[in-house]
């Protein structure tokens, strides 16, 4: 009763969850153009997830898996495999490569479980696998973004305040799956902590990182919150820190639309999806598109601080999960929709889904 009253009061005076407040990008998250100045490694249609399998970089793009060879000179891409369904996430450990598909199945390529296919007991709900990571040789961690919408409809889940996401542990030997956490707002990234004791999960719609302890029944612990953008995949930085990719910015207008239920429902029912007031991974450059660059144009120039629904942001977190470095692509940049990044030989490889580019960023000294 009290929380319900609190929500009503918040809605009335515009405080709490209804405050329409968005944290600023300042401090170590101060905007820059670093992503736009990174080297273009490869043009790949909508690159989504990345992982390292041996000395090869593996990139998922639609229903294709590409190997990127880095041995000498310019990086070269080679089609590794093609699936009937879209690829939602990938993860590698030793000779094993796990591929999560948008139809809900998880396929293992190579290693002791190579060729086997797994599924989660989702009780007929739409499959929405978003991220996977190996916990050890035999177990896989799986993020399910939503129990209400498939992956392609992630904007619907955000606008309806989705909190039906879950994290699962899948035993590759027996095929048994157990739920580690549920009631999450679109878990979109997962990685083991450096001490091996815990698991970090990025909870997109709540703009935060959670720590789970797979071996215990302890509730998830919030370890970093108040992020100014929606977090996606995260990977270890080789030491005790992490690289976190964030795929779209938060803004007050979207927060407002999420809050205004009637308006939101009518918008979702009446307009094509790409004309919704919602975050996106890329600008279409159409005049029909709402608020991409808004009215903040002067002499035909799009200002970097213009309101935007898409953005590129990658953050380096130290061992204490304090942001230390950030790389941005702002409103006037194009390397938006950064969904994944992995460190490689002192460089950072970033997948910009919005630009359809794989980037090499020099971060060795940072």
């Amino acid at each position, binding site marked *: 009763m009290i929380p319900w009253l609190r929500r009503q009061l918040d809605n009335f005076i515009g*405080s709490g969850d209804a*405050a329409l*407040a968005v944290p600023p990008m*300042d401090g170590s998250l101060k905007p820059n153009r670093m992503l736009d100045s990174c080297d273009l490694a490869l043009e790949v249609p909508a690159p989504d997830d990345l992982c390292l399998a041996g000395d090869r970089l593996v990139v998922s793009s639609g229903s294709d898996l590409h190997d990127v060879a880095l041995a000498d000179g310019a990086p070269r891409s080679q089609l590794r495999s093609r699936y009937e369904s879209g690829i939602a996430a990938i993860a590698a450990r030793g000779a094993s490569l796990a591929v999560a598909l948008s139809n809900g199945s998880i396929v293992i390529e190579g290693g002791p479980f190579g060729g086997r296919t797994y599924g989660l007991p989702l009780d007929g709900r739409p499959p929405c696998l978003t991220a996977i990571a190996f916990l050890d040789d035999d177990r896989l961690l799986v993020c399910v973004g939503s129990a209400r919408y498939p992956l392609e409809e992630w904007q619907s889940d955000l606008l309806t305040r989705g909190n039906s996401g879950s994290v699962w542990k899948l035993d590759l030997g027996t095929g048994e799956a157990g739920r580690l956490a549920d009631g999450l707002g679109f878990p979109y990234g997962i990685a083991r902590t450096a001490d091996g004791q815990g698991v970090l999960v990025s909870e997109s719609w709540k703009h935060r990182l959670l720590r789970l302890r797979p071996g215990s029944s302890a509730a998830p612990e*919030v370890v970093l*919150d108040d992020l100014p953008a929606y977090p996606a995949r995260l990977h270890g930085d080789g030491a005790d820190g992490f690289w976190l990719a964030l795929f779209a910015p938060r803004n007050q207008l979207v927060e407002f639309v999420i809050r205004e239920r009637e308006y939101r429902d009518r918008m979702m029912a009446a307009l094509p999806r790409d004309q919704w007031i919602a975050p996106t991974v890329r600008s279409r450059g159409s005049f029909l598109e709402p608020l991409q660059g808004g009215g903040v144009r002067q002499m035909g120039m799009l200002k970097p601080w213009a309101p935007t629904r898409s953005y590129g942001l990658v953050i380096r977190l130290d061992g204490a999960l304090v*942001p230390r470095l950030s790389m941005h692509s702002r409103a006037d940049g194009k390397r938006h929709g950064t969904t994944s990044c992995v460190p490689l030989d002192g460089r950072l490889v970033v997948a910009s889904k919005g630009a359809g580019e794989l980037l090499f960023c020099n971060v060795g000294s940072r």
Partner: protein
Amino acid sequence: MTDAPILELRNVSKEYHGEPAVRDVDFALAAKEIHSLLGENGAGKSTLTKMIAGVVQPSKGEILLDGQPISFASPAEALKRGIAMVFQETSLVPSLTVAQNIYLGEEKLYNRLRGLYIAAQQFLQSLNFPVDPTADVSSLGAAQKQMVEIARAVHHKARIIIFDEPTATLTPEEKSYFFALVERLRRDGVSIIFISHALEEALAISDRITVLRDGQKILTEAASNLDRDKIITSMVGRTLSNELYKRDGKRVPRPYGRKVLSVQNLSMGKMVRNTSFSIYAGQITGIFGLIGSGRTETAKIIAGVLKRNLFYGGEISKEGERIRFRIPRQAMKKGIVYVTEDRKLEGFFETMTIAENIQVHGLAKSPPEEVIVHRSRFRKLADEWRKRLNIRAIGSNARINELSGGNQQKVVIAKGLVQTPDIVILDEPTRGVDVGAIAEIHQLIGSLADQGLAVILISSYLPEILNTSDRILVCRQGRIVEEFDADAVTEEMIMYAAVH
């Protein structure tokens, strides 16, 4: 300037509780002269000028006006003889309007407010002061209060005007108005005694400069024969030169700690407009802005002194927890302390002792376990803080109004720190404080950040912001408009952001 002094002090001394504040000082002011009095806090400048203005009486020596010995029983008597003093902290009546303050003491039996406002409006316009004569003084900012104070002195047709730190609260533009006004007063035959800690200002506008140290006169020289180094050496008895604000080599700002405070889309009327910023532990975040830019109001909202808009006033969270305070005590309990820019009005109880002031503030965080607290407990706590902050006073039982500006400021800071906060907001902590005490306060601020506290330093003095802060936020028209790293910014960049 003519050579014959219109005011002369011969061998003047003043003691408080047996402690000399001024010792055997000779001082002369010529007609149409601008004479600067310089010295560290506690050097005796304010006491000397208070004797001239009739606020206190000398213990020894004599004061001559036009060659005749005088003794004023009150400032009103001194004003009748043409001596006015514009105090460091304004002495206006906050509940009266600007016009009423200017004409205070000259009221007739029947006063027509409309006529008073028209006269005040014309008078203020003639001084080029953009102040509304019908506004309550309590609603004015520090700079505007200063203008009213100056206007009042000018209105009383004073022959000698003593300005005690007149420019401390003024913006660069306002300062240039002020100096033009001083020149005009001089041309009209007024002699001026100018007390300032801004040495460049004193050098630029003075005919002569007198330096005091520990209550004694060290030198009186024509300003043209002096430079900053010479003055500082005389003031402190050591060569500080430009050490205070010297930027040699590359500064290494402290790294970002964890985010301890997040201000999101904060709004309060027209003063604070949808402003957002973050504050990090173990760092000094400097906030620069011109007067009226909303920086103080923003800080006061965080500390529970002011309230944000009830509807859509934005969010403040401290370490992930949303906060909204009705009174400052709630903020103190949460570890947020605001050290005010107006120490006289909001900083302390001036007739209470150092010990009582510190103890009273300590009560805000946690009430004492006993019903009766012995005074020796107060004193012990105060002695600790006196030692830690090097507060120079006769003892912890000294009353605040007996301390110099710098030592008063240290007491205000001690009052904040006694509550063991984790976020400290210091609003103009070195305003009206001498060079020596400024260095000590800066050192203290640095040590707070080194201990892991999040420090917010609000200042209108660019060299202070540049040399003390690890990161700099610029406030303009009620919102933070720019952020700089301290190692990659110049005064020009900050000022450009503050005005454009």
